[in-house]
């Protein structure tokens, strides 16, 4: 399997998670204290994999018979997934008990979904992408319906499953057409023979189907219909995972497959498609979010519009765009984890306190929590000196370098619209007085996770260079 110990060492993060899943299954079966042991085991496992990825980011190699890549961007993605998952796990400990869906398999399925994401980011072969995608998606369908007794959760799960399976169909069909015209599923072969392959209409159709399938997964308009309902129906911590890890994984797969193409001849073949879905997603997301009353639905539409900003980077398709998209994903992951984390903390039993109006006057009652939510909202709106601003800045650089200035202008117009609904939360928290003062169950674990996320958002905003230098070194 492995040619040498170095190869084994390079894919260690994936192996850690894989082995961890097996151990977790055993803990769940045999330990009486699994309720405490399992989440903390997951957190440490995720952190171990994440730190390994970050520390050995320089070990660029291709392993396992040209199936997986390691090092560089792959490792940055792995770190985003695993550290993000560690935050989600911390948030879940108290939340899923409150939510009434404590099952041991929750943590284990969370781990398998992360394994799927990691395979997608590391893939060097279309089949590995497909394998990773399915591991992730099937885990997601189960997580969405974690509370079997709740009607909305069942609806979310079923809706996600049906539409997700439909999208997967597109991807498989796309891969089949690509295989039919290229006679291989190796990504390296496809990128190196791209100019000849594009003469074959079937190949272009294949890539397009592949892209459409992934447009579902990144939650871009017009393939976004599942997003609001699934976010609303799923447990809040699970929605946090969908909107961060799930989105980042889909982008990592697109980057792994397509980015080598963009620099070659005919590289801008798919720019029109990507630019169109980008503009539609940005504006649709920002405008519809204004009308939302449920905070989870608002974050869902915000997620659609952020998919649009990220797609600007895909459309630009140059070196800066790769770096920009990865930076943006890292920033977005922690902003959204913080936002969903705070929502999950404030959420009462039976999914109360989810309406935006229940945040009125929070600034007086929960100063620290409100300050953190305000920072996250400013960051999501793209205000300096927070991480979200820098992500946008970087993506606009990429767009302008690729002569897509018009796309950057539309991007800023859409962010100006989005300011309105992000600020609405801040207005309610600080400028309005409370309507109903609800009691909040405090949770030290969740607070830890939220504070960590907010610190990352501030640090990435003030010192973006640390991450940028790491990414640009390997693009």
């Amino acid at each position, binding site marked *: 399997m492995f040619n040498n110990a170095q190869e084994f060492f390079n894919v260690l993060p994936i192996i850690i998670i894989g082995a961890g899943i097996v151990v977790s299954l055993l803990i769940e079966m045999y330990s009486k204290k699994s309720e405490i042991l399992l989440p903390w085991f997951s957190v440490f496992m995720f952190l171990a994999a994440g730190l390994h990825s970050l520390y050995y980011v320089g070990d660029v190699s291709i392993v396992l018979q040209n199936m997986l890549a390691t090092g560089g961007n792959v490792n940055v993605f792995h770190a985003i997934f695993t550290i993000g998952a560690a935050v989600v796990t911390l948030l879940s400990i108290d939340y899923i008990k409150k939510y009434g869906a404590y099952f041991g398999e929750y943590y284990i399925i969370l781990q398998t979904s992360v394994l799927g994401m990691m395979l997608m980011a590391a893939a060097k072969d279309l089949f590995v992408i497909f394998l990773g995608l399915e591991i992730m998606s099937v885990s997601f369908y189960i997580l969405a319906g974690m509370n079997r007794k709740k009607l909305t959760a069942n609806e979310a799960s079923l809706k996600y499953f049906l539409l997700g399976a439909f999208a997967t169909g597109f991807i498989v069909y796309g891969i089949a057409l690509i295989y039919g015209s290229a006679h291989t599923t190796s990504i390296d072969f496809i990128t190196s023979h791209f100019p000849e392959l594009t003469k074959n209409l079937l190949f272009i159709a294949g890539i397009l189907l592949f892209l459409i399938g992934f447009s579902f997964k990144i939650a871009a308009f017009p393939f976004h219909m599942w997003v609001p309902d699934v976010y609303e129906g799923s447990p809040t911590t699970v929605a946090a995972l969908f909107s961060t890890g799930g989105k980042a994984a889909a982008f990592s797969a697109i980057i792994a497959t397509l980015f080598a193409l963009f620099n070659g001849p005919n590289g801008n073949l798919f720019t029109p498609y990507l630019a169109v879905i980008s503009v539609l997603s940005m504006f649709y997301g920002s405008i519809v979010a204004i009308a939302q009353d449920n905070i989870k639905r608002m974050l869902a539409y915000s997620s659609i519009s952020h998919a649009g900003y990220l797609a600007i980077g895909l459309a630009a398709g140059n070196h800066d765009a790769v770096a920009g998209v990865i930076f943006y994903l890292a920033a977005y992951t922690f902003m959204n984890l913080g936002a969903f984390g705070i929502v999950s903390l404030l959420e009462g039993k039976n999914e109360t306190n989810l309406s935006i109006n229940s945040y009125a006057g929070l600034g007086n009652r929960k100063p620290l929590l409100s300050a953190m939510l305000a920072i996250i909202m400013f960051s999501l709106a793209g205000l300096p*000196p927070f991480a979200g601003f820098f992500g946008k800045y970087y993506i606009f650089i990429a767009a302008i370098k690729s002569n897509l200035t018009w796309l950057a202008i539309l991007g800023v117009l859409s*962010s100006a619209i989005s300011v309105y609904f992000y*600020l609405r939360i801040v207005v309610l928290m*600080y400028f309005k007085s409370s309507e109903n003062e609800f009691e909040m169950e405090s949770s030290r674990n969740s607070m830890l996770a939220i504070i960590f996320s907010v610190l990352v958002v501030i640090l990435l905003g003030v010192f973006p260079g640390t991450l940028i230098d790491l990414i640009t070194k390997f693009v």
Partner: protein
Amino acid sequence: MEQNSLLTYLILIPLIGSFLVLFIRKEQANLIRYTAFAISTIAFLVSLVIYFQFDSANSDFQFINKIEWIKGLNIHYHVGVDGMSLLLVLLTTFLTPLTLISSWSSIQEKVKEFTFFFLMLEVGMLGVFISLDLFLFYIFWEAMLIPMYFIIGIWGGKERVYAAIKFFIYTMFGSLLMLVAIVWLAVYAIGPLGYFTTNLIELYTIAPQIPMYIQIWMFLAFAFSFAIKVPLFPLHTWLPDAHVQAPTAGSVILAGVLLKMGTYGLLRFNLPLFPEASIAAAPYISVLAVIGIIYGALVAMVQTDIKKLVAYSSVSHLGFVVLGIFAMTQESIQGAVIQMINHGLSTGALFLLVGVIYERTHTREISDYGGIAKIVPFFAFALMFASLSSVGLPGLNGFVGEFLILLGSFQSPILNSWWFTVFAASGVIFAAVYLLWMYQRVVFGKVTNPKLDGLKDMNAREIFVLAPIFILIVWIGIYPGTFLKISDRSTAKVVKQMYNPIKVSPVELGLNQSKK
């Protein structure tokens, strides 16, 4: 390059201070107030040190501090001042401690948060004036919105939420277009310089070479963002709302410093970066400026609310500044710079006085007053003084700036028409009408409102706040040379950059070697 970290200290003092305040228990409101006052006074003293070490014969940026920040994108923490920015830095550090004292009695709730945001605001304003990297400038420019938004939204009047959101979205909308223009410029730099850069000093050398049809778009993107901030007619509609709803300290800083960020931006970025486009756009912008002067004055005349009247007078006064900038002669630009300071002082004083009386009577309607000269003589005198300064009475500060602007715009080869001066001059007359008429209705006549009986005159703290401002008003009015001298070289340089944009290649300037 020689590094000088004085400006960095200047920014760090309020930044660290604002977090320091957070650690004081909120019950100790007075301790918080004294700490904040001490912090902002230290910042003022540091800016005085900078002033005394400043070489006004040198037109280059001084006190430069340049530290690598984001290596991958060639972004530096790069600060420095020339004469124009030094004057505005001094205005900021001078007004901040005074406004902090002025709010001691009016801000009773959430003193800690207020102080935190106020010091943060000072950081943002100072940063805007000293940044020499467009990226850094943009960060401060935008970040400053957040504290101001909270100051209006939490401590403001009845319609504060509406005013805060309007202020925020208006400004944000303008600045986002500027962000695209900044990125475009930085990408454009790759052509002539060979690398991506947002360094202002380097961009000064290459931006004027941008072809005219693009330069116009760049000019508009920058100018739009600054014009909203100034505010230039017809983009001024956020201003009366924000001013009227903001607490006194917020209004003073808003009028005194924030609006100057717009005119400063026009002067620092638009003119030297896009000279051809600026010359082409000058007549149009000057027409808007003159409309603003007259419109602001006429609308101010019919206001029944004193604070709104002062707010509209800002639209009129800032019109003068914009006219001065786009007349593009050295006299007019000197006049514009000194007028920025004057407006900060006289309008700041007016807002402070409105705050003083509002705190006692809780009304700002002119018709509720009348005949208070006998009840509160100190106040009546101070209001007279501030009004006359704002009108532009010779011997006080307002006259110097307006005179220079009118003189400069009369001779301006770019505007090439004395109609601008004629119409603008009528604004001075209107100013006398609306301010003196307001003064007459508030101060003279018979006391009709029984609530005014027993009104307390200004206390020692309030006199202490206004006295330094009045001293400066007289100083500038009688001997403006002290201040004009500071900005003389740098405004001359702007004019030179306008008419002979630097057309040397960057290689000759040694810019390429310094990088590689």
